[in-house]
């Protein structure tokens, strides 16, 4: 057991899985000799060689498109897109091909690949380095979307993603890449996709979040002094409605927190599902604390945009007073 950051936990998972499975090929911009701009793949090039850890040309569609070919031929590619803002050029390959291949070939061809993508704001990055596009990909049938909120979960979720027979986008919240450490076992453990984690139990209100904002939620819960049940979704699609519904039926109130814009954010789906499945348990409307329906601002204003603890506390108080 070692005390690791999120970056180190992902690195450990990659090393161990590459040792176990020689079908794994990592490809992307700067992932090789440089070890990735966030050093997530540090040491892998030296350890596994340039044929397994490949510095690709600078072309996101090319990275995902060739990874699709690798996967269809039976390998297990792990392409990296350097920042979520550069997923755009790869959208066509992800949604027109990776997501559809199993369906359109009735299972004759599949695309078992894990696309690693640093995501979200809060690190004073340039423009197009701080967005949260998880709902866009959750809306695309055929793709799974994962976002860990802790080093321990990151390792267990990444192993499940790599072994999953379908394409997975593994979003890594860069705000917590090195924000804290956690005990991460050396031994193998898998956290199943589609299973949420109850971070803390509570009676008065259910809070649902994922990724870096789970930390803001924990701060808000402490500040509010209320008995709040915090659920970290961990997988955005398919998401664990059973855990959310059981909690909301118990508490009668829910607040969903995410960085992405409010309209059509994944919070909208959760609120709708709570309405469908917990309508008669609700004591208050479901609240959403989210980014705004604006372009993510440059970093001088990013903390105005991101759901910080004080804003979350306000929503909690409103929901409880309803």
């Amino acid at each position, binding site marked *: 057991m070692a005390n690791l950051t999120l970056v180190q936990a992902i690195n450990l998972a990659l090393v161990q899985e590459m040792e176990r499975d020689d079908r794994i090929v990592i490809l992307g911009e700067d992932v090789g000799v440089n070890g990735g701009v966030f050093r997530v793949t540090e040491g892998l090039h030296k350890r596994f060689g340039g044929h397994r850890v490949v510095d690709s040309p600078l072309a996101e569609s090319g990275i995902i498109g060739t990874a699709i070919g690798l996967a269809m031929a039976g390998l297990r590619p792990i392409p990296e897109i350097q920042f979520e803002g550069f997923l755009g050029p790869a959208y066509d390959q992800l949604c027109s091909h990776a997501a559809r291949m*199993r369906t359109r070939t009735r299972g004759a061809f599949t695309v078992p690949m894990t696309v690693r993508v640093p995501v979200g704001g809060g690190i004073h990055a340039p423009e197009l380095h701080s967005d949260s596009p998880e709902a866009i990909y959750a809306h695309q049938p055929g793709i799974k979307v994962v976002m860990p909120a802790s080093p321990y979960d990151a390792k267990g979720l990444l192993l499940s993603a790599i072994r999953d027979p379908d394409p997975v986008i593994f979003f890594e919240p860069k705000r917590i890449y090195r924000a804290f450490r956690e005990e991460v076992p050396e031994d193998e453990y898998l956290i199943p996709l589609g299973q949420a984690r109850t971070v803390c139990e509570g009676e008065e209100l259910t809070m649902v979040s994922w990724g870096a904002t789970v930390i803001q939620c924990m701060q808000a819960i402490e500040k509010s002094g209320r008995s709040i049940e915090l659920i970290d979704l961990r997988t955005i699609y398919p998401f664990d409605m059973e855990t959310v519904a059981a909690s909301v039926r118990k508490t009668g109130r829910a607040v969903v927190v995410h960085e992405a814009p409010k309209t059509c954010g994944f919070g909208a789906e959760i609120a709708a599902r709570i309405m469908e499945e917990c309508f008669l348990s609700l004591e208050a409307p479901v609240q959403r604390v989210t980014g705004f329906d604006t372009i993510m601002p440059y970093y001088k204003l990013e903390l105005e945009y991101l759901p910080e603890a004080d804003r979350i506390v306000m929503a909690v108080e409103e929901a409880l007073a309803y």
Partner: protein
Amino acid sequence: MPIRTAFKTEIEHVSILDEHGQFDAKLGAGLIPDGDVVRLYEHMSICRHLDEVAFKLQRSGRMGTYPQNMGQEATSLGAAYALDKTDWMVPCYRENCGLFWRGLPMEYVLLHWMGDERGNAIPRELFCMPLAIPIGTQMLHAAGLAWAAKYRGEKQIACTFFGDGATSEGDFHEAMNFAANLDLPVVFLCQNNSWAISVPGKIQCSAPTIAQRGLAYGMHSVQCDGNDVFAMVKVVRDAAKRAREEHRPSFIEAVTYRLGDHTTADDARRYRDQAEVELWKTRDPLIRVRSFLKERKLWNDSKEAELRERAEREVSAAVQRAEGIEAPSSNDVFDHTYATLDPQLLTQRETLRTNSLGQESGRRPSHAQSGGAH
């Protein structure tokens, strides 16, 4: 000497059996055994017949939109003939002739255009990818498939097909750049048929040849007569050898022509000159092979009549198999979305309604009954 030539090159054009039936005996010597030329001619004729039948099926409402292959048969066929049976063929959607040569049953293509995904469930041992509708995107998959073969130390290569329109797409450039810089065994085969629906080739590329584009990525590039099955076999064989032995990609610009409309939903008379079509009809890939065979006493009118009957018989059987397949079940909409369906998909499959709450009406939690929310 302040200015010197940094790079100089030229693009070769390969033609072996030209539109007038002239055969280059030196280039063509031993390229295709006579018996195989007969088989190739028969195969092209059967594909041509399927094309005519498919057109009529669409017109009579028995099939959806269909893109005719007429005029381009030699291009994909020459490639399929030159490749090994285990090389990947990564098509666009005008490569019927090559795919059928590889062994893809004709009804697969018919099913695809009849709106049935089972037409894409191609047996893996054929090493054919399904038809690709978005333009140029499949070229990257070919690069990845070839990469996987190289990674495993196998001799397999990938050949991908695309049109002149695709050479404007970003993925075209990314695929060529990946293949050239990462030394991937890929054959890039451009079917330059002059028209991307209504847009002429000069809007896609203003250089004298499309083949120059391959050269720009540092790969061997050649232009050839795409209606000449002999030339196709030669250039693809050369490119395949280069890929297999040196892990180097190649670019082939096969100059051909789309004799039909873009698809059955198109009317090419709106944008192109009939005289151009008439000219290209004289360059039909079938005509020249037929005269080649007749000159060598390998073909005659009675064989032609027999072939006609065989084509009708085989195509009609394929149509029957495509139309006779059992109706897909509504579960098929769901069952291949993921390897394992999640609870929400199972609920949707169960109810076939996205608006089902998946719960019984009138069910009330206990606190509601005791005067809670209403």
